[in-house]
């Protein structure tokens, strides 16, 4: 008797812990992506765009149905509340997997939207963030022909689950938030450009300092960023050798760097890159020999060294640190009070050295 009473009491005490209210799934509208823009008419207002998936009863039918809602208001929270009165079912952000910032909006400030998303309990931190060009609304309006679930094509591209393009930098929301707050590591966001109603392109990335956009990485720089930060990047590079053009495909890639502060000289960062590659395109009709592959590798090394060094210098000059060099320096030095100051001082004089090793090992399927 006492035991039963205890159990019932325990169950009642657990009631507030359930988190959500009982609401059936068919009474919810799933917001798949949020877009944030600056209002066209009132520059101080924010324009929130929600892309909502309309569920299909018959899984055999291929067509997707989408509802796109746009609302302008002073704050994001207010805009979402106002949108609630425009739909019949409860808006659910549990499946929101992408947050797109309009280019104009991204140039002002991202902080307030990050704060909003961080505070809401139903928005997951594993959503992908990106900058939309020309605006977030237009990016969300893109509906590729190959898409079956709303926003899925965007997600597949951003997450590398689908296409594995070397020009896309996937940035999770938690990562972005961290980059905005961590000293020595700066945010960057991939740029999604709406080409037409059915097509988008992601090949560049914006670099931020802690406040605003400072630099736009072009596709090649974006690819170098990926090469230097991810292992075994799927990509190819072109190389000029003996007056004609060759392309090699990267099988394995590995990159590491060291920050060196020699006593009698300028501080520099030395990158070591190791690529194992195969020849993918040969415009000449010459026979490929082992010696030829070795020479091609050497040419590719020289080419990469020079290009990557240039790219790194450009990024460094912009004042943003997406690679996290500052964080690495701080993490490997002991004095907490002075290390960032030291870093800021030597940052101005920082040089880059790139030491790449390209091993073109295979000739492709031709033997």
């Amino acid at each position, binding site marked *: 008797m006492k035991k039963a009473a205890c159990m019932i009491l325990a169950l009642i005490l*657990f009631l507030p812990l*359930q988190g*959500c209210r*009982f609401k*059936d*799934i068919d009474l919810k509208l799933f917001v*798949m992506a949020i877009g944030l823009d600056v209002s066209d008419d009132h520059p101080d207002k924010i324009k929130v765009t929600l892309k909502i998936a309309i*569920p299909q009863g018959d899984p055999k039918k291929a067509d997707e149905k989408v509802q796109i809602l746009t609302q302008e208001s002073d704050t994001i929270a207010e805009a979402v509340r106002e949108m609630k009165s425009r739909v019949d079912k409860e808006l659910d952000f549990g499946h929101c997997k992408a947050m797109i910032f309009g280019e104009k909006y991204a140039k002002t400030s991202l902080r307030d939207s990050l704060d909003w998303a961080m505070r809401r309990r139903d928005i997951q931190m594993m959503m992908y963030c990106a900058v939309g060009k020309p605006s977030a609304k237009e990016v969300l309006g893109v509906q590729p022909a190959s898409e079956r679930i709303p926003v899925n094509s965007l997600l597949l591209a951003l997450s590398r689950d689908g296409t594995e393009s070397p020009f896309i930098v996937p940035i999770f929301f938690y990562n972005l938030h961290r980059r905005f707050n961590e000293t020595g590591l700066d945010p960057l966001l991939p740029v999604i450009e709406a080409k037409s109603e059915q097509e988008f392109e992601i090949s560049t990335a914006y670099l931020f300092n802690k406040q605003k956009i400072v630099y736009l990485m072009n596709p090649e720089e974006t690819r170098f960023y990926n090469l230097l930060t991810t292992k075994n990047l799927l990509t190819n590079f072109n190389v000029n050798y003996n007056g004609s053009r060759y392309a090699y495909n990267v099988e394995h890639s590995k990159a590491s760097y060291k920050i060196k502060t020699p006593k009698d000289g300028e501080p520099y960062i030395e990158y070591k890159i190791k690529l194992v590659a195969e020849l993918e395109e040969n415009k000449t009709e010459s026979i490929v020999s082992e010696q030829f592959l070795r020479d091609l590798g050497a040419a590719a090394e020289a080419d990469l060294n020079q290009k990557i060094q240039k790219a790194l210098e450009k990024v460094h000059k912009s004042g943003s640190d997406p690679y996290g060099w500052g964080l690495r320096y701080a993490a490997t030095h002991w004095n907490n009070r002075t290390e960032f100051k030291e870093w800021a001082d030597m940052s101005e004089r920082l040089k880059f050295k790139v030491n790449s090793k390209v091993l073109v090992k295979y000739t492709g399927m031709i033997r």
Partner: protein
Amino acid sequence: MPSSRKKPDSLLESLSEKLSKSSDLEQRSLCTAEHQVKLIYLKSVCDSATLNRFILTPFFETESEQSYENYIASFPGTTSSEDIKEILDYILQGRVGIVFNSGKIYLFEAVRVEAGPVQDAQTEVIVQGPSDSFNESLEVNMNLIRRRYQSHDLKAETTTVGNKSKTSVAIMYDQTRIDPDVLAEVKRRLEGISIDILQASAELDKYLSANKFRLFPTTIVTERPDRAVFNISEGKIVLLVDTAGYAVILPAIFNDFFTAMDDKLQVLPVGWFLKTIRYIGLMMTVTLPAFYVAFTSFNTEVWKVQIALLVSGSRATVPYPSFMEVILMLLMMEFLTEASLRLPKAIGPTATTVGGLILGTAATEAGLVSNIMIILVSAVAISNFVIPLNMMGFTIRVLKYGFIFLGTIYGLLGVVLGMVGVVMYLTGLRSFGKPYFRMFSVDRAKVSSSSKGERTDG
């Protein structure tokens, strides 16, 4: 107690008085010129062929009363008694009372046992291995065990349970492997049972358990002699109930209920795989419906987008909340199982077809339940039947409703809460003093390597 010696007539009178109004009571006087005896027995429980051959015919062939008395007394099953209550019990058991002029009464065993032949196991079918099962006769059942366990350490003690039914219950065990505390506990509890009628082994299981309200069976009820023998070799006690056709094995642990007898016949990895399958089936059948409710109504973000949209779409026409949907469909499934259980074999498949296929398809097409729900219910039903022992299967069937309740009120938290609760409950449970949730019944250190060889041929 009045002594029956020297007063044969008064003894017979009092016996016939006790057994009055029994149309099957037979009282006979056998007379020749030299001697005379009186018979009293119940013809419904006595075998008339035995009676004719071993009592009537020899009577007319023997010369004197003394030699006939010696003849009767020489039978192994014959006893003699003076206590009138005991005599009555013997007669009710199926013995023939033979009263001599001297006043001495012999009770000759002529019991007629109506039990079918040893048949194939019905409820615990295995693919390969022995297929015989216990039947309703205690003697046959003991024979089935003795034949498989030819050791002088195998003991069989008999007691009776039931004030009216006087059912004999045999306690069989290997005295070298048994835990004496458990044996003493079992005997104590058997003596403590005070019921009128014992007809089934499962009933014994109910009366033996210390805790009246419990969720899980703490004894195994089996119809397979090989399982009984295997468990005896693992140091457990087997209770055989006369007239019941099933044996009770105790103490039992949780893992025992997920062991089929052909696991040991398989190659080792296959055996592991089969056991894993069963545990996965257990988890699925218990938690799937609850997870469905939790995920459709509370934590929709747990699902992948594709499934969330699919469920949402297929639920669009369903007029009631998710837990109603689940409970309705599960109840339908329970009805189906119950109905096909009791139906004659010829109609059984029809009922399942009509119920399972037509009802399921029609319900989804009418939009009363979602497509996903049908898949889920079938998965739950099938995985429930993966559990080899029925007693546990029934428990699990009931348990999932508890989980649905928790899932409905607390969502995902409730299901997790339920799982923690069940594990806590299981760890607290004892089967005759032995921890129920211990995963292996044999203390491997204690069993020597030589006995391991013996165990495999059980």
